[in-house]
């Protein structure tokens, strides 16, 4: 068990009546990549700014490297932050940007230059030291922002949605680069994002945040395959959400029937009784498609539907169909083999899924009956 670089203990922050961060506790292991994933307004930025020291928690404590950070100003914390808009200093060269923190620590000029150049070299910008910030591309600026922080060898690097401003292609590229940088430096990264793909690809651990609390913490695989709350099931990855009432119940599984009478079976998550409002989730890639019943995996309950549209997106292609009885939409991922790529709208198809890979939660207050 490695030591924790960051420990938050019952941290609370209120803004007037609004509770931004609600009694949050978690720890981040040394050298790991921890992401806080949540929709905008969930309190993740507030949390990050409390770790950086720009705002103080109302109660609770944040410890970094085993030391409580209560009353410690941002410039005295062993933490550095990569800002959303990067916040590179336009009045300085790239080299001066990277050397800024060293200068503030009183490192001698020659040493400063040596270390900032070595750092720029490591992020692949060895030639850029004399350039102005606005002469760099988006991806290069990103690397300068990270280099500027890492040159100070912080215990913790905080990243506030740093990929948000980049275009899609560059974002995909920077994702890989960030992961490689983190592996190369071994620094603990705390990364906040609203993009579940960034969180899943980059992180060792993810905390899914909603309304100031963590809904679930775990590895990306945990979150994806074993969501603990309906919020996590719907926020992390694509999911078919089916709302209805419990019509049959045993220890492990549950049968859910929608208002219009479509029944599916899924694993039971949480306490529920007959006729309780529930929501079920089925991932698009869990369901299989067939024109005849023999094409479906044996032993799974099957349903029939009608093709609505084919959503071609290379490896992420899917078909959107409507269940025959209830006209409810259902999304199914197309197999990579190219099978079913000839499906036509309004074509009748059959589909099935393993009830052991679908989950059912008690309905959230206020969230029931939104659809289905």
């Amino acid at each position: 068990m490695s030591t924790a670089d960051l420990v938050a203990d019952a941290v609370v922050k209120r803004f007037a009546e609004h509770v931004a961060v609600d009694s949050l506790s978690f720890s981040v292991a040394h050298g790991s990549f921890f992401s806080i994933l949540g929709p905008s307004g969930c309190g993740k930025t507030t949390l990050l700014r409390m770790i950086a020291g720009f705002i103080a928690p109302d109660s609770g404590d944040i410890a970094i490297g085993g030391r409580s950070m209560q009353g410690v100003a941002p410039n005295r914390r062993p933490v550095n932050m990569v800002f959303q808009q990067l916040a590179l200093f336009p009045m300085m060269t790239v080299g001066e940007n990277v050397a800024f923190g060293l200068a503030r620590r009183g490192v001698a000029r020659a040493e400063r230059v040596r270390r900032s150049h070595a750092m720029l070299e490591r992020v692949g910008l060895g030639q850029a030291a004399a350039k102005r910030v606005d002469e760099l591309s988006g991806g290069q600026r990103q690397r300068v922002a990270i280099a500027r922080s890492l040159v100070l060898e912080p215990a913790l690097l905080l990243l506030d949605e740093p990929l948000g401003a980049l275009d899609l292609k560059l974002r995909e590229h920077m994702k890989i680069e960030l992961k490689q940088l983190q592996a190369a430096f071994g620094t603990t990264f705390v990364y906040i994002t609203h993009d579940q793909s960034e969180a899943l690809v980059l992180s060792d651990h993810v905390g899914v945040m909603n309304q100031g609390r963590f809904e679930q913490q775990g590895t990306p695989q945990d979150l994806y395959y074993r969501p603990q709350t309906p919020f996590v099931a719907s926020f992390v990855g694509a999911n078919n959400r089916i709302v209805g009432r419990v019509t049959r119940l045993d220890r492990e599984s549950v049968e859910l029937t929608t208002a219009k009478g479509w029944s599916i079976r899924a694993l039971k998550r949480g306490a529920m009784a007959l006729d309780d409002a529930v929501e079920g989730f089925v991932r698009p890639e869990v369901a299989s498609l067939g024109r005849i019943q023999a094409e479906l995996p044996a032993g799974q309950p099957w349903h029939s539907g009608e093709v609505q549209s084919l959503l071609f997106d290379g490896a992420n292609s899917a078909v959107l169909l409507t269940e025959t009885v209830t006209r409810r939409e259902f999304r199914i991922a197309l197999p990579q083999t190219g099978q079913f790529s000839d499906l036509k709208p309004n074509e009748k198809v059959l589909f099935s899924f393993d009830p052991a890979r679908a989950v059912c939660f008690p309905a959230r207050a206020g969230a029931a009956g939104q659809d289905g």
Partner: protein
Amino acid sequence: MASVPTRANARQARWHGRFAVSLLLAPAVLWLGALIILPHIDLAILSFRERVAPRQYVASLAQYKIFFTEPLYWHVFVRTAVMSVVATFLTLLLAFPMAWIIAKLAQGRARSTLFILCLIPFWVSETVRTLGWMILLRESGVLPSLLVKLGVTAVPVEFLYHDATIMVGLVYASLLFMVIPLISSLESLDNSLIEAAYDLGANGPAVLRTIVIPHAAPGITAGCIVVFMLTLGSYLTPTLLGGKNSQWFTEQIYTQFITRFNWEQGAAFGFLLLALSTALVMLGLRLTGQRFGDAMRRA
């Protein structure tokens, strides 16, 4: 009948366009030409001649020679320059925190209220504002009698006619012209830059020195140029608040033109003042590494 675009039509349209532009520019051109350039040419000619007999003039450098040989003029000239530089610097020191509060700390209503508070004194004419200072500071005025009442001084003290009083008046009259360019340059400073510097280990003074001042430099320069020129050329404030002791160079020019009726001398002094302000502004720009155009865009 449909009109066919012909070369003549196009030429006419172009001529119309040019005519409209020149109409719009006319007031500015007239103002520059009639009120600034022409009088200056006339003054330049005046300053380079000498009266040898009634209605008899010859070209000479005598007016400028007098300035360099007469210590009084020299003294007043240097004193005006030094006092103006000091007043500009004091205005900057006072205006910077005000601009910082308005641009960065105040929110919503408080912000516009503070800005209006800065602006309100300038709704009153300069004469009235300066007379206001006199009411406050003269021997029989508000402040001296208050000090007597409070027992600080035994008899009323005369606060007028000191250099410090001139300085107070000059700074007060210039404040707004420093605050406005400073606000606009501080507003454009991204707060995350300040936070980033702080996050990277900078303390308050280091943030100010490495981030805020370099960013605000064009605004600071613009404010300083405007305030310096206003101060150097001001007449009312030094005369009313400093009285006979003020020894401001503009008073020398006034004396030559109005009292002595020596227009040649006055014109030469006017050009010397113009040269002085130009030289000092250029020196300031050179020392701070700023460009005049950049600074004026901020003003």
